[in-house]
């Protein structure tokens, strides 16, 4: 069960702080100043 509802258009993006497959850390704040597409995938299969 999700904690919250998905952010709607016009709302602030939810912060995230995750590690990528190469071990690099990516935070929402690191992306300030550029637009981005954020895709949450389903299962890997």
């Amino acid at each position: 069960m999700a904690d919250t509802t998905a952010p709607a258009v016009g709302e602030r993006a939810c912060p995230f702080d995750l590690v990528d497959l190469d071990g690099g850390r990516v935070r929402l704040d690191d992306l300030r100043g550029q637009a981005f597409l954020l895709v949450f995938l389903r299962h890997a299969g």
Partner: protein
Amino acid sequence: MKVLHHRQRIDQRGTALFVVFDPPERLRDSLLRGLEVPYPVLVDRERSAYRAWGLARGSVLSIWGDPHVWLRYTSELVRGARLRPPGADTLQLGGDFVVDPGGTVVYSRPQRRDDRPPVAELLHALERATTTTR
């Protein structure tokens, strides 16, 4: 990950990030096998980002009872795709979002069933995210 076919359009306007919850070793053997992804693939094993972005688990009926799911798998088989074993959780839903340079969501499409938006729609949203902030 059809959006990867449009890398040039994405790079002209910003970037893309993918969030997954499966363990990296499983990803390399399945989804990412033979695939070069020029964008960060972020691993969210605890699904904290999934929850924060409002992405829930669907019901068995909403996912596996959806005829579109079976149609998609059938069409992929007909095209010669090799079916992979399902991941650890086939009920976790995904979602697609576009965020502008100021950190505002300009496109929000959490999944409610097996209904990803067309790639063109995502690219258009990304393009609008940079033109409207100028």
